[in-house]
């Protein structure tokens, strides 16, 4: 795999009409993908809008209307790499025009629909679970000290890889056509990617829990010379045992199906109760 595959069109039919500039336009128009997100068909409008430069080049009149309608069906996946299925759709639409005898137009819809799941599977866990947590971990620890670099680094750590991958996805999708994901799945690379991403995500989540969750008991133990308090004893056994317990309980309640918003108010109640009765400080 050479690097040109993600920045340019690699090999093309000599009758091909889709150019590098067209794909760049698809990339730019993919940026507001979720701008028109709605409950009915989610990303359908964004998908059709992004693909329009290619569709306009390939079709005229009624054929254009058909192609637009074809891409107005339900779509939803990770928005940051939406250019990958867009690139594939562009390649397929072009094949439909160049080789109408062998390529069926319904396959455009079948392929892009089939890819929603796998792309969202890798994409959501990588972008939301790993990259965002990396950005939050670095950004929030600076922001808590009042450092302006906090929000700035947060945006940069997230968006530089995001936009690079969004751009490269366009060309990767177009060049590889439809075979790529099935190859990736068969070679086991997909599980490896998810595995590596979840290692990073969980380690950072663990370190943030250690740094940013705190709970201090205010329960005295013993009297006179030997007086101490429960918190000191617990810290001697295992540092951070209280935050870890809080995390464990909240995790368990979430698993039991308690919704996040009520849980927030429960935690607030625990804090106020602890302060009112004096067992927390």
């Amino acid at each position, binding site marked *: 795999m050479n690097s040109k595959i993600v920045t340019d069109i690699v090999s093309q039919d000599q009758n091909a009409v889709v150019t590098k500039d067209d794909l760049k336009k698809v990339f730019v128009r993919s*940026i*507001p993908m979720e*701008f*028109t*997100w*709605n*409950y009915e*068909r989610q990303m359908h*409008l964004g998908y059709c*809008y992004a693909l329009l430069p290619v569709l306009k080049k390939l079709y005229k*009149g009624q054929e254009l*209307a058909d192609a*637009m309608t074809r891409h107005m069906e339900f779509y939803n996946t990770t*928005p940051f790499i939406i250019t990958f299925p867009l690139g594939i759709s562009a390649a397929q639409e072009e094949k439909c025009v160049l080789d109408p005898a062998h390529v069926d137009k319904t396959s455009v819809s079948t392929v892009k629909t089939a890819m929603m799941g796998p792309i969202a599977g890798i994409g959501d*866990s990588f972008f939301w*679970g790993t990259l*965002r*947590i990396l950005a939050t971990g670095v950004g*929030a*620890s600076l*922001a808590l*000290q*009042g450092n*302006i670099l*906090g*929000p700035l680094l*947060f*945006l940069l750590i997230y968006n530089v890889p995001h936009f690079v991958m969004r751009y490269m996805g366009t060309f990767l999708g177009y060049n590889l056509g439809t*075979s790529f994901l*099935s*190859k990736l799945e*068969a*070679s086991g690379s997909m599980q490896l*990617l998810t595995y*590596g991403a979840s*290692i*990073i*995500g*969980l*380690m*950072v*989540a*663990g*370190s*943030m*829990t*250690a740094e*940013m*969750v705190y*709970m201090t008991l205010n329960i005295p133990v013993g009297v006179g010379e030997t007086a101490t308090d429960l918190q000191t004893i617990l810290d001697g056994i295992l540092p951070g045992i209280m935050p870890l317990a809080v995390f464990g309980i*909240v995790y368990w309640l*979430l698993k039991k199906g308690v919704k996040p918003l009520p849980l927030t108010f429960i*935690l*607030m109640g*625990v*804090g*106020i109760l*602890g*302060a009112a009765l004096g067992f*927390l400080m």
Partner: protein
Amino acid sequence: MVIIQTLLIALLTLAARCHTMLGTSLINRPIVLGALTGLIVGDLQQGIIMGGTLELAFVGAVSIGAYIPPDMVSGTILGTAFAIAAGQGPETALALSYPIAAAYQAVSTLGTPISLWLMHKCDRYAEIGDVKKFERGYWLTGFIPKLIFVPIVPLAYYFGSDAVTAVLNQMPAFIQTGINISGGLIPALGFAMLAQMIMNKKVVVFFFLGFFTVKYLGIGTTGVAIFAVILAVILVQIEQRFNTSGSVQVQAGGELDEF
């Protein structure tokens, strides 16, 4: 002065609502909005700190699948602005933000029918293949449902600031202390939601590795993040070696050649 601040808050609200227009680039997150709100109401430093605090509290608030998170945009902007106006700290911003975010979430669902109506007009333009009308319809479908709700946050700031300050000053001390304490508890919810998304038996140990690295070795999250990336690369390479030696026969079967 308050008028200018209110107008700037209106602009900030609009920009945050339109984050999806700019590539879903996370400019609507509390860590960004907190700093900008602080800048508008005249205390950048506090705004940054409050933004960081709220970011941790809302870290689980991402819309994946069917879950619709509370509206952190109104929660952050109003929570930060009110807390700064009342001369209070980040815990107060946190305590104010959640009820606001929950209430706004309920109101904003009223926008759904409008966006569906606009969207169906685009269906018609696609059916007749009218690119110009379709593109115009596309932008209207994006903007209008967001624009009609923009005034709520700046109006709440304009009329609510004094009232919220008065209420905060009347509040008994134990509630203040209690909210400070819960400021340490609420991030656990965010991390738990996050962990739920990526946790499985094979990788659960890495959560504890991250946790105790901080507790025992005292290196911060940035340090852990660097080691985590290195560790992930090493482990993926090891895993890959096992995988390729195990799956040679499968590849020799020629299934891949079909593509």
